């Protein structure tokens, strides 16, 4: 396993880029620590796949260096980087059995047969295909084939890193739970360095210790799932993580109060910056609906099974609240905010509040 350093990486698909807008990856400078589980999360076109391809060696970055355990691998091709990859669609050899498919990467490296056998048996049990071991891959379902791809990615213990490119996209919901938990368990047991690309927030948050959120070719935040949920540093993170995303209310701020029309909202502390385009961010989970607080007009209540989403307007601004499945919505509805979870944004970036420990991004 390896530490991976991305040293001032930039990438443009067109020759002779001039401005930032020509770069698919504007600038990435970051370290993936040895044994970490990371997710690269973002919408299509955000640069996450470009970054993964730079790590795997499918792409050579226009600028910057990539290091594995301190060794410069920028100019090395994929096969010289000693990594395993799992793609969106299963890549299996149809004419080989499940066992042979899993043994293939090991035999390729000249691993002795007794170790191959021990390892393959272990992997087959993990992915739950014991009963299919001697079957040709050909007749298997898409789920089973993708399990083989995952298993093959995990077969070699000596790889520098395992890279996953949207590996669960084609999998049915029930099977996603199973495969995700297995990946998590494998990471815990073997401490692989794993980088997992996805646009699905649930997959990213549940899989990774640290999630790298990307937007328009840049990393906008790296954090634990809690950090991304509680303290999004950019409004994009507030929007992209969470369903529905964070409510953003245009406000004016003076001292410790935020004002929107006639509504005055007390902030938990005084923001260190009070100019620019100011927005107050509050997640729907921290908005309660009841008989006290700010009066709202309820536009719609969506019953989504385990919760209800209340869509309302406050001073003409749309605001969403998430409430319990058995919650009653009063006729004269009011909303209140959990003050500890209010965030202020100036020109889309989070503003620190007095008393918060400042830290470099």
């Amino acid at each position: 396993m390896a530490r991976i350093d991305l040293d001032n990486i930039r990438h443009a698909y067109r020759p002779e880029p001039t401005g930032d807008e020509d770069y698919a990856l504007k600038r990435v400078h970051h370290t993936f620590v040895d044994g970490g589980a990371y997710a690269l999360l973002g919408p299509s076109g955000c640069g996450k796949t470009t970054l993964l391809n730079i790590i795997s060696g499918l792409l050579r970055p226009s600028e910057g260096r990539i290091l594995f355990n301190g060794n410069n691998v920028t100019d090395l091709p994929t096969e010289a980087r000693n990594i395993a990859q799992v793609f969106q669609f299963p890549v299996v050899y149809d004419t080989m059995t499940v066992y042979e498919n899993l043994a293939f990467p090991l035999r390729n490296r000249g691993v002795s047969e007794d170790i191959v056998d021990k390892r393959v048996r272990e992997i087959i049990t993990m992915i739950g295909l014991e009963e299919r071991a001697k079957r040709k891959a050909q007749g298997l379902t898409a789920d089973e084939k993708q399990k083989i791809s995952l298993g093959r990615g995990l077969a070699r213990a000596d790889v520098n890193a395992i890279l996953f490119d949207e590996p669960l996209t084609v999998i049915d919901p029930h099977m996603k739970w199973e495969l995700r938990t297995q990946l998590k368990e494998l990471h815990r047991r073997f401490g692989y360095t794993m980088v997992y690309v996805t646009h699905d927030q649930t997959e990213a948050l549940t899989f990774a210790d640290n999630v790298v959120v990307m937007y328009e070719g840049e990393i906008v935040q790296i954090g634990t799932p809690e950090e991304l949920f509680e303290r999004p540093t950019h409004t994009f993170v507030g929007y992209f993580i969470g369903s529905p995303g964070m409510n953003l209310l245009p406000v004016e701020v003076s001292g410790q109060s935020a004002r929107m029309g006639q509504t005055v909202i007390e902030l938990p502390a005084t923001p260190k910056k009070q100019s620019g385009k100011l927005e107050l961010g509050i997640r729907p989970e921290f908005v309660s609906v009841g008989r006290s607080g700010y009066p709202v007009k309820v536009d719609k209540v969506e019953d989504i099974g385990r919760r209800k989403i209340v869509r309302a307007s406050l001073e003409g601004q749309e605001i969403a609240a998430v409430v319990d499945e058995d919650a009653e919505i009063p006729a004269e509805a009011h909303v209140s905010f959990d003050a500890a979870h209010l965030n202020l944004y100036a020109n889309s970036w989070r503003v620190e509040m007095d008393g918060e420990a400042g830290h470099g991004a």
Partner: protein
Amino acid sequence: MLELRDVSKTVSGEKHIRGVSLKLEQGSLNVLLGPTLSGKTTLMRLMAGLDKPTSGSVWMDGEDVTGVPVQRRSVAMVYQQFINYPAMTVYENIASPLRVAGAPAETIRKRVGEAAELLRLTPYLDRTPLELSGGQQQRTALARAIVKDARLVLLDEPLANLDYKLREELRAELPKIFSATGAIFVYATTEPSEALLLGGNTATLSEGQVTQFGPTVDVFRKPNDLVTARTFSDPPLNTVEVEKKGESFLLAEGDRLSVPAEYNALSDGRYIIGFQPHHLRLKASDAANALRARVTVTEITGSESFIHVDYAGNRWVMLEEGVHRLDVDDTVGIEIETRHLLVFDIDGRSAGSLQQAA
């Protein structure tokens, strides 16, 4: 109204659809929910007239249309893969069904304008599909289905290839678009959460059979059987076999659970109880009534934790608010909230509906 009467479809000796009867009302949104290979696409093809049923009949507004080919029916379809004409502009893509039908120029201009507005494509009408994002391409395909003004619109996992957030946005827009047209909409998906967000009616499919059909929330809350309950659960439904004895359900190792009032009249004997992950909660392990379970995996989403546990050999998932970092193989106390408990007989039929029937 579209009506399927006891429709079956057999392909080379294999039953793909088994005795499906459904009535879909004008202006309704109907979700077909089931895993891959449960028969969703086959059923849609039978509804469209792309395939002919092996037995049974299909009726549209009181007319038997079994065997009438798709060209002679009023049907529009949208697929998982975005299908557009790559060489035509977005405008011409949307206009194409109207041109085929020989609509006057003025009608075309008006209808394309309306559909583009509805699907927020107005700024892109002069572009070609390949210059658009995936979401915009699929909106173009949806707009084309809408201008066709078909009486039946079939959407086969239309959002499956889109980004998570785009899906969220289009999913919120679709019911509004649906209700504006008055057509019968049928929407196939593998995802329970998508069915709940869309609302309308849901038919759950399992191995070519419709196991239940009704208002979406009702099917979710009051499944007639265990198969329906499982099809409609994500994360998976937790289940365990129990013995009812008086006012208690007996679990493993002397643990017991009070029988909720609505099930009091059930006769004693073996049952299967089912409960959603958010109805399983952490509890101090020395508290009265706490069950003791072993943690297998914990997944944290930032605001909630999925805690996978093993209780007496049963694998359950608990969805608990907040962040809980539990170590694998830790023993934790858990409690089943019984207010939304599902009870099935040993053959998987809902004990609630058995009681109602009795």
